[in-house]
């Protein structure tokens, strides 16, 4: 089965940061975006917004970098997960992640990242503007392909 992926739609995101707060409340039991696994990035004027979290890369740099082999791939969800029993808090994964999605909890001395909430991401559920989705990759691209096809439809639809 093709595992689902978490995708963000920058056109829909309003930058309300509900996803950030929800994530920190769920996992850290406090409201603090610094403890969130997802972060809303913006540039200058807030018309460019994008929630960023772990991409669960196929060729994950954090997984390859971990000297303790504490990072592995969940077979069911396809997500990259941390085994805290093995983790020594060396921060190698923290430096290796090209997306800045791996974060480090200084108090507990361990990294943390998105774990897709075991298949039911809270950020997706709580987003009031449906800017986040957790879908089959095909289901995400199909509407785009359909939209593309619609724009091409007219010239091909002429009578012969």
């Amino acid at each position: 089965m093709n595992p689902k992926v978490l995708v963000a739609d920058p056109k829909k995101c309003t930058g309300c940061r509900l996803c950030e707060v929800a994530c920190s409340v769920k996992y850290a039991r406090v409201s603090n975006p610094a403890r969130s696994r997802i972060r809303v990035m913006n540039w200058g004027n807030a018309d460019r917004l994008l929630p960023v979290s772990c991409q669960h890369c196929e060729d994950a740099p954090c997984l390859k970098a971990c000297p303790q082999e504490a990072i592995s791939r969940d077979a069911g969800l396809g997500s990259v997960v941390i085994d805290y029993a093995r983790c020594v808090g060396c921060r190698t994964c923290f430096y290796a992640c090209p997306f800045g999605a791996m974060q480090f909890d200084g108090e507990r001395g361990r990294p943390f990242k998105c774990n897709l909430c075991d298949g039911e991401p809270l950020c997706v559920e709580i987003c009031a503007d449906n800017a986040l989705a957790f879908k089959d990759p095909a289901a995400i691209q199909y509407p785009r392909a359909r939209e593309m096809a619609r724009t091409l439809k007219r010239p091909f639809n002429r009578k012969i």
Partner: protein
Amino acid sequence: MAVNRKIAFIDLDTRHIETTPVPDDWRQKFIGGRGVGTYLACKHSQPGCDALAPGNTMVISAGLLAGTLSSPSAATCLITKSPLTGFLECALLPGPFAAEMRWAGFDHLVITGCAEQPVSLFIHNGSIKVIAAGNLKGYGVARTCASVRKALGDQDLKVLAIGPAGENLVRFATITNHAGRATGRTGMGAVLGSKRIKALSCRGTLDVEIKFPEQVIAHRLSGKSVIPETQPARVNRDNSAIAFRDLSASMADRETTPESIHRMADYGLDPQAVMFMADRVAGGRADDLLAAAEQIALREGPGDTLAEGAVRHSVNTDLENFKHPDSLPDLISLYREELPAGDVGPGVPFFAAPDRRVRSYRGKPGTVAHRELSDRLLDCLGDRTCAGICPVTGRLDMARAAEMIRLNTGLELKSGELQKSAYRCYALERFYNLREEKSGRLDGSLEFCLDVPGEIKMSREAWDRIDLKAFRRTVAQYYRQNGWDRKTIVKKKVLERLGVGELWKTIK
């Protein structure tokens, strides 16, 4: 707990900054946001001082639920004496600043005095720094925000800034945030400019503890299905980055482009206020609004008197024209542009119309009072999303709001207590205005609207249905219920009953 935040007293004369926790009993009395802010403004501003004098106090407040799941991007409340009206004003600035302030450890900033040179304030995890900002003088809002972020080396800083209009003390200058959202009118930018604060920047990574995390999440999710899609705080959606006014309709026939509107906002002015001033006040129709905005912001040529605001400009120039009956609608428009906080003006159309079904005014004072209190309670909570608004009636559900407060903060406040706190805020606004009032009276818009039907946005048929005698009786009843006397003045015994009687002695 989510209530464990501080008040910072910033004296710009001496650059002394003092922080103190928000007293526990204030949560019950004033809740937070607009409530605490209004009390602080009453307590710390110099009675009778000019709005642009160092004695005026600017309070920047975050609501009790700002930064929680209930309202992660709540509006920031800015409370001060307005240079436009001379009365207390509460302006709401949408965007992430209030929440960031709470994550930085502060609920309220009380700014007094005046800096010698332009400065910016940097708020970060329990500390506040006053930084010299002479190099930012004359910069537009966007450039100021970018410069502050660059200077402090943090692109995620939440910034509030004023443009040249605020620096030049234009009486309706705005305070604008990094995302282009602004306080609209009321002249908050001029007050900040008078204190020589060019910008405030904030970054916080402190925890706001949530009392019942699981229940809060469940409560938020349960509300999602019933909250209309338009309810969540829209930090920004349109590409022009100007979302504080619906400009498209009113400016569609002008030679304005998103870029020119953006530049007007960059001066620290509300484009719609510029249009109003340039057209209706200066007379004629200004096609080049950007040039008008530049003149107003820099106080050049005719812009210098326009920068004084509609009523002052009219009084200074040609008051006699406004006394002509044909000009009365204009005068009302001017008045409605410059309403003090605590004035029932915005509720006038609703107030004046009899109930459609029964065609009577029975119950109207109660309904209007509920509306006034709801607005204030939402500003105290810093929440315009899900905690209180009933999606069916659009009215505030006090029980739902009380439940959201309990789950987030652990504070057990009953519906009646919330209502009383909102009423306390309303009474304090009235009190402040009574203290400042030298002539005239509040709720003047009620009087105006009784004379000119077109200005209360009603059809002629609806206007004809108004029973003026009954309406006046209803207004009197409304005042009586609230504890104002016939001259709309809040009484001493009302303040004593509300536990803020000590403020009465500040009236000279």
